[in-house]
């Protein structure tokens, strides 16, 4: 657990205040509130369908909330906010698409502008620098669609970072990665948060790969959220209250398991999935 980084200079970079969202008559988010300070690494943990992507869409201004507000650096967010970088979930690019890793990173600079980007030495240098920062120079000239999941994630992170955001949102970036690539991505993000003082909000259904990197956790369940440090939030009493029924928080070999009390059913949140465990036993 790294020491908590707080910005003495200014207030939080992101403040989510009492945000509620209903989709097709269903309450997806209910009175969700939390704040993120500059340079903080925050995990947004919740099972599939807990509302993680919806919360991102609210922060990005793509989903108007039914109630509540979102402040970016103390101001109401606008449609195109240059302070926010975003890496969407499940990015699968056609291997035939004529786009090299360096082209996608370059689009991060100015994709919202009309016209064609003229090549310049400054532009090329900025792209090179960003490729270097995510260790992507080795595959900079390959098509993005031909890269592995971990390599694509690094290129997408560079695409988001090159616009120099103050807050980086990543939606389930570890979902389709093997354990090794997942560790690499988390280490990279952790380094970026520390070195460039960029706040990171990363969603995951399994918190275990993030345990060493997270400064704070926002835990989503049943549309509601509780936030704080991992020690404060991931406790039997706190999560039982959030879920609305008894859950057990178990710590096994440095991993966290959240087990629902009812009928011995495993809550899929924070659960280092059965398949992982099985794979390890088999191989």
């Amino acid at each position, binding site marked *: 657990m790294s020491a908590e980084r707080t910005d003495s200079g200014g207030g939080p970079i992101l403040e989510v205040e009492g945000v509620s969202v209903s989709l097709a008559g269903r309450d997806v988010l209910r009175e969700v509130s939390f704040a993120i300070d500059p340079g903080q690494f925050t995990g947004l943990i919740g099972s599939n369908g807990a509302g993680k992507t919806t919360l991102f869409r609210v922060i*990005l*201004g*793509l989903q108007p909330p039914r109630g509540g507000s979102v402040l970016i650096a103390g101001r109401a967010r*606008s*449609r*195109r*906010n240059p302070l*926010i970088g*975003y890496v*969407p*979930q499940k*990015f699968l*690019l*056609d291997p*035939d*698409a*004529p*786009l*090299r890793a360096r*082209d*996608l990173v370059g*689009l991060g600079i*100015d*994709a*919202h*502008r*009309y*016209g*064609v*980007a003229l090549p310049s030495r400054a532009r090329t240098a900025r792209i090179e620098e960003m490729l270097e920062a995510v260790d992507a120079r080795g595959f900079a*000239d*390959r*098509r*993005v669609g031909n890269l592995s999941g971990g390599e694509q994630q690094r290129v*997408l992170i560079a*695409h988001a970072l090159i616009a120099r955001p103050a807050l980086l*949102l990543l939606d389930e970036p570890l979902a389709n990665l*093997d*354990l*090794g690539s997942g560790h690499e991505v988390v280490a990279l993000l952790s380094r970026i948060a520390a070195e460039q003082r960029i706040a990171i909000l990363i969603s995951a259904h399994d918190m275990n790969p993030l345990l060493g990197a997270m400064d704070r956790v926002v835990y989503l369940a049943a549309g509601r959220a509780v936030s704080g440090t991992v020690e404060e939030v991931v406790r039997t009493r706190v999560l039982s209250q959030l879920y609305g029924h008894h859950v057990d928080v178990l710590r096994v070999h440095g991993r966290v398991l959240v087990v629902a009390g009812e009928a011995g059913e495993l809550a899929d949140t924070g659960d280092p999935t059965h398949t992982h465990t099985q*794979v*390890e*036993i*088999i*191989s």
Partner: protein
Amino acid sequence: MSATLGAIFAPGFFSSSQVQIAASVGAVVAVVAGTVGVFTVIRGQSFAGEALGDIGTTGGSGSFLVAVGPLWGFAAVAIAAAATMEMLGIQRPRGRDVATGVVLGAGLGLAALFFYLIATNDNTTGATFTIVFGSPFAITSSSVPLVAAFSVTALSLIVMLFRPLLLCSISPELAAGRGIHVRLVGALYLLALAIAVALAAFTIGTILSTALLVGPAATALRLTRSPGRAIAAAALIGVGSTWLGILMAYDSYDWPPLGNGWPVSFFVVSLIFVAYLLAGLPRRRRVSSTATGADSAKLAAEPSRG
């Protein structure tokens, strides 16, 4: 040397005004179709491109009935169809094929009516053939300004939209996250596509127009890795196929069976297809070898994971 050249370029080829117009209009249209086509292929909208071309048949036959130039008919119907598809839900990937198919069906129904009216009014099959399969040698110099205006419009749209369109085509989520108005960009692109398809239909016929749109672009995507180079390659392949097709059609004037020339469109489309196949040959081998390489590397790494 000059004898060989004489055999390739039949006498009168360069001085024929028909050839000159066909070659210049064909080249401009090939550049527009190649440029727009690269995005059509990346966006997976080949079916929409095909439909807008096919539906041009309605515009072409309709314009024949009301005695205006066919290019007006192709463009008017393609733009109207594109607007309808957009409103019916082409922006949603799942609604896309349905919206396209529904509009295509409705449009072709009208074409059936128009061809029936043409056939009952005057007994020529020439109009039908020209509309459906095209005839670059029949293009008159009076249509050149309109071709130029449409071409400039379509190319300007692509140049203006280039960066947001590229990001939208790769990942709408990524584009939306950056505040790009994905639906507006998609609708403007559809307008460029409708114009490009109308131009292609005017040159090589409505049902073959998709070959000029998608063929060179798909070939270029096999050969290049960056968007700028893909567009340049698609334009070059399109222009090359068109010019070579025109030359072969000109030379075919003394070929059997009739001795009055084979259709240009046949040659153009065939050349595009051959180029596509040739572009696939070396890459297929390269990809499969790297794929097996990666697989064996993965297999080797697997046991050490546990």
